[in-house]
């Protein structure tokens, strides 16, 4: 179904090939997982399969790629798109419509199918993916898992032979990840060939027929799933664990109520907040969190994790409520000065011309600015990118930079929102270690995450959302 023969490809204006001498084949209904460190060439491999290389991305291609019996170099992307469907890491970015029903119909309408056929196929696929009740919903109102189902159903409307999935689990909670695995298993049974690129591997173990490990643009090894059990191999290529035990973390709340300044804790009292014209997310919630620990904030999408993070850093004002650190009351303005938050999308958080300027502007209120900047630069491996434009860095490098910029403020509270989504094992371990070190210095580190591996590595306790009665009223 997919065949690579000595394929090498170099992007325009680059000296080094993105992939070199790649050869492998995938049979019909096989599920192949491609993994490897950030920048190892996984995305390039996807583009080679779906025909974006060489038709959309020019450059130098050698060797031969055959997909569904067609040589991609001689077949237009439009013709290949009937055989290959691609699901992006963030499916919302590939949607052309705003309503689920319209999105499912869109690709069929573009193919000039009859109105009756369009209605029949979309109804069928919506049923199959359990989307019937969501068909009139706006895509912005859907959870990440639901968006992925819409994207998959939209692809299946075209009835392709191959589906490529780019980091499908990166933004999913464990429950949605399990559901996705079930849907993929169903597709596999229907004879669809699946090519999955992901760093997180634990959820794929029952699906995988073959594993490809890429390293610096080369196919380092390929084989059965058992290949990933080799510790040395995982360490060498920066891979994640293939099996993860769900971590059981103690609840984060302190047992006592810190009413005086001698108690080391972060105290929230009678927090009430809700968005305009929406039901209240928090009503008179009171809880205490320990300083100097890494706290995982867990819970399904829509339970208010990111809103809580925004409230605790002063980005959103409370309707009512008070916050104290070690007994000292703080206003939202003080929270912003004493806290740092790293939001999910790094593109919004990088403003300056160079990496050095980005760090300097973040540290401008730190009295020990120069030392702090030099320290984080070395710690996050950013020395060689000092003069690079931040937006020109890779995803993993940008993530390291925004976390470094948060640290140079020397915050009392550090909040990280999904810091390891789409990161390889090496980068995840680095971020886990940074969180542990910050906590040891007395900072309260709150990490909103669905990453079970990160939780097991770095978190001391968990704050489960939505806030239960215990957290609301101690």
């Amino acid at each position, binding site marked *: 179904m997919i065949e690579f023969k000595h394929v090498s490809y170099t992007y325009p204006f680059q000296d080094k090939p993105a992939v070199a001498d790649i050869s492998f084949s995938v049979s019909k209904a096989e599920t192949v997982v491609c993994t490897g460190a950030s920048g190892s060439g996984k995305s390039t491999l996807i583009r080679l399969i*779906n025909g*974006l290389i060489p*038709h*959309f991305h020019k450059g130098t291609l050698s060797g031969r790629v055959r997909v569904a019996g067609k040589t991609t170099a001689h077949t237009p*992307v*439009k013709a290949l*798109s*009937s055989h*290959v*469907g*691609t699901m*992006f890491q963030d499916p919302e*970015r*590939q*949607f*052309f*419509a*705003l*309503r689920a029903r*319209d999105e499912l*119909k*869109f*690709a*069929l*309408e*573009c*193919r*000039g*199918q*009859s*109105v009756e056929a*369009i209605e029949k196929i979309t109804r069928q696929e919506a049923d199959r993916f359990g989307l019937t009740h969501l068909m009139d919903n*706006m*895509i*912005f*109102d859907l959870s990440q898992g639901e968006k992925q189902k819409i994207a998959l159903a939209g692809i299946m409307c*075209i009835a392709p032979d191959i589906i490529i999935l780019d980091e499908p689990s990166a933004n999913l909670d464990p429950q949605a990840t399990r559901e996705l695995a079930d849907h993929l298993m169903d597709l596999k049974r229907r004879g669809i060939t699946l090519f999955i690129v992901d760093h997180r591997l634990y959820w794929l173990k029952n699906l995988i027929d073959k594993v490809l490990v890429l390293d610096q643009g080369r196919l380092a090894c390929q084989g059965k799933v058992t290949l990933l059990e080799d510790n040395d191999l995982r360490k060498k290529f920066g891979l994640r664990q293939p099996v993860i035990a769900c971590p059981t973390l103690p609840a984060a709340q302190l047992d006592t109520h810190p009413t005086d300044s001698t108690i080391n804790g972060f105290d929230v009292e009678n927090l009430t907040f809700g968005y305009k*014209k929406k039901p209240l997310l928090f009503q008179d919630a009171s809880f205490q969190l320990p300083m100097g620990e890494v706290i995982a904030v867990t819970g399904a999408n829509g339970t208010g994790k990111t809103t809580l993070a*925004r409230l605790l*850093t002063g*980005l959103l004002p409370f309707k009512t409520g008070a916050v104290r650190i070690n007994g000292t009351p703080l206003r939202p303005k003080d929270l*912003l*000065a004493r806290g*740092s*938050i790293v*939001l999910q*999308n790094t*593109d*919004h*958080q*990088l*403003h*300056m*011309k160079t990496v050095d300027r980005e760090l300097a*502007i*973040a540290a*401008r*209120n730190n009295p020990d600015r120069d030392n702090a900047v030099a320290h984080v630069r070395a710690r996050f491996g950013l020395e060689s990118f000092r003069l690079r434009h931040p*937006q020109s860095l890779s995803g993993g490098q940008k993530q390291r930079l925004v976390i470094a*910029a948060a640290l140079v403020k020397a915050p009392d509270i550090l909040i990280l929102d999904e810091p390891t989504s789409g990161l390889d094992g090496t980068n995840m371990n680095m971020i886990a270690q940074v969180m542990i070190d910050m906590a040891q210095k007395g900072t309260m580190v709150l990490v909103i995450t669905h990453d079970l591996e990160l939780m097991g590595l770095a978190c001391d306790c968990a704050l489960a959302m939505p806030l239960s009665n215990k957290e609301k009223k101690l």
Partner: protein
Amino acid sequence: MPALSVSNCSNLSSKNFIDVRTRMLICLVCSTGIIFIQSPPALGILALASLVYALAHGRIKVLTVAWCGVGIIFAMAMCCIRIMLIFWPEIGEMGPGAFFNPFLRVLILVNTIFALAVSSRIQDLMTSLKTLGLPFVIYLPASVMIRFIPEFINDVKLIRESMRIKGFNPGIQFVTLHPFLVVRLLVVPLTIRALRSADTLSVAAELKGMDANTRMTKMPSPKPGAWDIIATACALVLTFGSIAAEKLL
């Protein structure tokens, strides 16, 4: 999905007696008509009719803000002309009358666009575009432009949040005192986000098999109702009646 400017759907239904396509058509007719209409009385009648049409959609506070905005712009224009006259008297004296026609034209546009904006959800606009049977090369960019309005608003919100995290207060005072820094902090990431979105979407279009030769299925569209016919007829009669009256009288 956040509406373009409609607060919620229950509000929408009571004012949705005219179809989005009709409101789009009224905008088109009026904006074409005001190019040709020259006399202040004809423009005044059209402005009055458009005002009634705009007021019928409620949201009077928003409409007042829009008018105030137009008023301020024209007051500024008049002040600038006054200053210019001091240095270049050869321009010639211009009274408020010289500004009256452009002012009325802008007011007509504001009223009709206001009615379209406050009563249409983005999804309705996209659906209407689809049912108009436009060529794919026009439909796709137009619908993508509308599709990304909420995303653009969200990007601006997130970038402003990032500025606040870094200790900048992106208010009017900061914008006035540090315009270059604002460009760096706000406009640069926004531009990069827009470019990335465009790139991703063009890739998505390729992968969905779209190209310039794509012929879309024409989906069935609802027939225009009595109110649509009445509103369209009123707009046509008023606009083209004014043009005809001007030519004949």
